[in-house]
């Protein structure tokens, strides 16, 4: 039923899709003159691997299909990259992306369940997505279903206490259909995570909460796919993928530059960014 099986794209094709998602996200953020470029760009390969790499079993024509795999964007501010993936997957028209953050639009500033097709949870108040994912995983277990639940967390978000309530709970309930992915781009709004409230050793923390922990380069699509595959095959505990990423990845002047945590690029900056993402063309 899902879309995952036929002709999974090659790594090169996936890299190209990731670039396209970045372009969509930046254009939408620039049009809104509002949004979070940094954390959208850092998650591009993760989202691409999930939606285009044969990981998520889903059906854009039936977003509520009960057996679908769930993807919850707990770091809700990264939603432009998710909208881009959902649009490219056919959940809604690509044109609609440019309505980001506009009144009367389904492209809300943070994800809203029940408003935008394909959005599984209302997030944006950080720390909540993993608990919601546990609820889905529990429901699946009760119903004898085999769908998987993926939750993408921000690194700064892992400072929230609720994340660790959920981590403790998922580990103890041995929810092996649950997979958390940490977009470890090392910045939060006010600065470097390491300086503000270190997460380290974050892998050990999840491991001590009885999770299977995998570390990967979050921009290496093959690596991300490998980690997701390993998570899918793992039994007995949930898996946490620590994806090491670069905030603002793909646009030279945004990389490692926290100025673009929550600031839209100007028209000129957008032009430069698009040129970098689409060598040889300013138009798609």
């Amino acid at each position, binding site marked *: 039923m899902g879309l995952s099986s036929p002709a999974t794209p090659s790594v090169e094709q996936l890299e190209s899709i990731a670039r396209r998602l970045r372009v969509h996200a930046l254009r939408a953020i620039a049009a809104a003159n509002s949004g979070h470029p940094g954390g959208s760009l850092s998650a591009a390969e993760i989202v691409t691997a999930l939606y285009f790499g044969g990981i998520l079993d889903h059906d854009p024509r039936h977003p509520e299909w*009960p057996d679908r795999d*769930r993807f919850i964007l707990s770091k809700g501010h990264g939603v432009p990259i998710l909208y881009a993936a959902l649009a490219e997957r056919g959940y809604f028209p690509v044109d609609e992306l440019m309505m980001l953050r506009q009144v009367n639009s389904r492209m809300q500033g943070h994800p*809203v*369940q*029940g408003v935008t097709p394909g959005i*599984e*949870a*209302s*997030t*944006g*108040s950080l*720390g*909540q*997505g*993993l*608990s*919601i*994912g*546990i*609820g*889905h*995983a*529990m*429901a*699946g277990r*009760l*119903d004898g279903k085999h769908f998987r*639940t993926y939750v993408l967390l921000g690194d700064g978000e892992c400072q929230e*206490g*609720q994340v660790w*309530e*959920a981590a*403790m*709970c998922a580990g103890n*309930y041995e929810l092996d259909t649950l997979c958390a992915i940490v977009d470890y781009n090392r910045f939060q709004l006010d600065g470097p995570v390491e300086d503000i409230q270190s997460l380290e050793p974050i892998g050990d923390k999840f491991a001590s909460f009885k999770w299977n922990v995998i570390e990967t380069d979050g921009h290496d699509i093959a690596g991300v796919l490998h980690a997701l595959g390993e998570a899918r095959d793992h039994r007995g505990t949930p898996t946490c993928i620590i994806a090491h990423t670069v905030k603002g990845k793909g646009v030279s002047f945004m990389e490692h530059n926290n100025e673009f945590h929550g600031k839209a690029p100007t028209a000129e900056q957008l032009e430069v960014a698009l040129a970098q993402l689409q060598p040889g063309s300013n138009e798609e």
Partner: protein
Amino acid sequence: MSTTTKYSLKMGRATREAYGDALLELGRTNRDIVAIDADLAKSTFSWTFGKHFPERFFNLGIQEANMAGIASGLASSGKIPFISSFAAFALCKGFDQLRMGAAYPQLNVKVAGSHGGISIGEDGVSQQSVEDIALACALPGFIVCIPADEHAMRAAVHAAAAHQGPVYLRLGRPKAAIVHDPGVEFAFGRAITVRDGDSLTIVANGLLVAQALMAADRLSDRGINARVLDMHTIKPIDSDALERASRETGAFVVAEEHLHYGGLGSVVAAELARVGPAPIEFVNLGDRYAESGKPEDLMRKYGMTAEAIVTAAERVLRRR
């Protein structure tokens, strides 16, 4: 509708106990009912369900925020989660999670806040939920309800399961006097007239319904004929019952076990201002916290008794 006489109220079970029994009944007929607790299952009586349906019962330990989030996920995947804890913790510690995960997406999450009010007694202020109604009413689309006795609670739990959307039920710790028949006709948003009268209307819920009936008896000795409405549902408020009562009795006392701001009194006053302005006096905790003590001692000290209702009735009648 019944005419109660002095001392005729029979003591029943605590509404939390009735909650557990009703949940068990539901569990037998509906496989989608799931109960979750945060280490208070034996106090909230969710354990009544849990011991019969261990596979559908999750005691998470002391994780109220996580509990509310999990309920959101369960409801999104088609379950009907009933989450329970002390009211103070379920709402204060799970508020943002209920806001984002239940109210905003209007999911089928049922919240049972036990040990509501100050009548939890000796444990003191940290465990006394006196702001839960204000918080729950602030959540768009939530039904907010305090059943008065075991019969109303049983009906309310079934109504909560039948309703598609978020519901907050407040449960009480002490035994509650029986004010309704076992087959009480119960619907959210529809007040129950437990005593008819035309001199004034006492609007009450929870344990204060019994106090209101006792107050009405004393008032009747002086020829004052009080109507008593069990306004179990604070949201949506029964506007029709209030409008009718305003027209037919012209004065109100609102009695509840909650802070003054944001509780039943606030909601009734706002609605009456719209549909039938009339003088109102309030019986509630006021704008303060209570303390440790025996429940009845606290209710007396903090003025949520039949006597307080009688005094408020006399006051409001002088204003009419």
